[in-house]
């Protein structure tokens, strides 16, 4: 009698334990036990693009008020505005407008402009000119954002004769031009620089973790309490409303350059905004987009353009030369996706299986 009773009690306990275990399993799987990351998003239009600052509500010393976060976000936007003034070709009264005007020397350049030019110069050398910050005459000529039209070969070669890093000498305070017509275009590095500048500012605030998304550039600051990375969808070049795969990223910067971002079409041909310095025309080597992961914002941004210009083979050679530390994902026009050596399925996961992930070949 009593053994039957205790047996029954045991069974009830066992079943209850089972139910409890099931519930606990479900709860832990859904991440209820990890403190969820809590953010406030702030959006602005700046640097010709839509900008999101996603700031943690959690501060280094407790919860942050909405007023404080708004203040921080406004300061972030202020940083973008000042970077824009220093390096944007579109800022009419900005520094680049002065530098690009008919002058031989620009004195009293801001620290920002000098820093970006110095970094540009370095990356230009390291990439053997695939990244070129002196393409101003060509980008003006092509006027891709303004819808073209396609310039004549004669105009292209004239513009090309006024490009090249030898046209500029960047000093400590002054910038010297050996060619008055030469013009810088920092569009391929500026947003990456700005993203990093915002993260640097955030590190001085009480914000614990944050993401800055700035037109093709994402920068991650701090660590989320749930220990997870951010899931970042990579746009599908063939249908830019859709995502073709996902990055899972915990830190650093991601930048993407693609031929679908800005372009115009003429006689059925697409002319995009990524100009190959060697041809003076939009890079045409079978790549549709390049995503770069790096620990440095301007480098990630500039490299996404440089690798796009290099094309698949040269880009992989460049990667293996270890001149700069980065990882990358390449999307080709024939539907292949190539990743660098340290990108595995935990970092990038293909979701559109019309694309084929190419097996890595190691040499």
């Amino acid at each position, binding site marked *: 009698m009593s053994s039957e009773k205790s047996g029954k009690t045991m069974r009830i306990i066992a079943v209850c334990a089972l139910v409890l275990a099931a519930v606990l399993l479900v709860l832990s799987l859904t991440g209820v036990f990890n403190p969820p990351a809590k953010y406030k998003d702030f959006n602005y239009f700046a640097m010709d693009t839509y900008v999101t600052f996603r700031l943690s509500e959690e501060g280094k010393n407790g919860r942050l008020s909405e007023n404080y976060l708004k203040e921080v976000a406004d300061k972030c936007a202020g940083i973008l505005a000042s970077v824009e003034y220093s390096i944007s070709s579109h800022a009419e009264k900005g520094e680049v407008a002065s530098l690009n005007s008919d002058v031989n020397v620009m004195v009293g350049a801001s620290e920002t402009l000098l820093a970006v030019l110095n970094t540009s110069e370095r990356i230009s050398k390291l990439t053997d000119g695939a990244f070129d910050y002196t393409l101003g005459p060509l980008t003006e000529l092509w006027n891709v954002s303004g819808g073209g039209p396609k310039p004549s070969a004669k105009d292209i070669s004239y513009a090309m004769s006024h490009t090249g890093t030898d046209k500029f000498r960047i000093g400590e305070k002054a910038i010297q031009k050996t060619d008055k017509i030469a013009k810088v275009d920092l569009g391929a590095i500026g947003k990456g620089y700005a993203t990093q500048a915002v993260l640097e500012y955030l590190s001085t605030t009480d914000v614990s973790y944050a993401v800055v998304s700035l037109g093709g550039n994402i920068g991650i600051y701090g660590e989320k309490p749930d220990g997870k990375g951010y899931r970042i969808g990579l746009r599908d070049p063939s249908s830019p*409303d859709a995502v073709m795969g*996902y990055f899972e990223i915990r830190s650093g910067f*991601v930048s993407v350059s693609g031929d679908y971002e800005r372009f115009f079409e003429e006689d059925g041909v697409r002319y995009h905004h990524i100009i190959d310095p060697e041809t003076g025309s939009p890079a045409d080597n079978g790549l549709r987009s390049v995503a770069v992961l790096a620990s440095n914002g301007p480098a990630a941004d500039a490299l996404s353009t440089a690798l796009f210009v290099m094309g698949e083979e040269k880009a992989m050679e460049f990667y293996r030369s270890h001149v700069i530390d980065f990882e990358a994902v390449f999307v080709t026009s024939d539907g292949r996706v190539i990743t660098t050596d340290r990108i595995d399925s935990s970092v990038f996961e293909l979701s559109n299986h019309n694309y084929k992930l190419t097996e890595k070949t190691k040499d």
Partner: protein
Amino acid sequence: MVDKAIDSRPKKRFSRGDLLALAAVAAILAASVVFLLNGRKGNTCLITANGSSVSYSLSENRRIDLVSNGYSLTVEIKDGQVFVTESDCPDRVCVRTGKISKTGQEIICVPAQVVIEVTGGGSGEDFIIG
């Protein structure tokens, strides 16, 4: 004494049926927890206008201006919710529907022929790049 009285009640063994029932309870409980947690917020919303559909992540705040069937609508995605902030359609039902965020909820604008639907998914991204 009391024990004895209880013990003397007629009782069945703990049958297979009981176990099944308990297992079912457990399953329902687990399923409802999953449903509660997942159903709370949809991950994406699908906006259909002019016959074409575009999916947006609800975790990415944005404003979408669209023109459909001759009317202009402004759709806003904010803090996991999607809603129509402005519309020049005659009945403005779409604006008055308010904010939706749960899987299956819809905002329908009949004059502009726009449907905004919160879809589940589970592959919701934090950001989209490129």
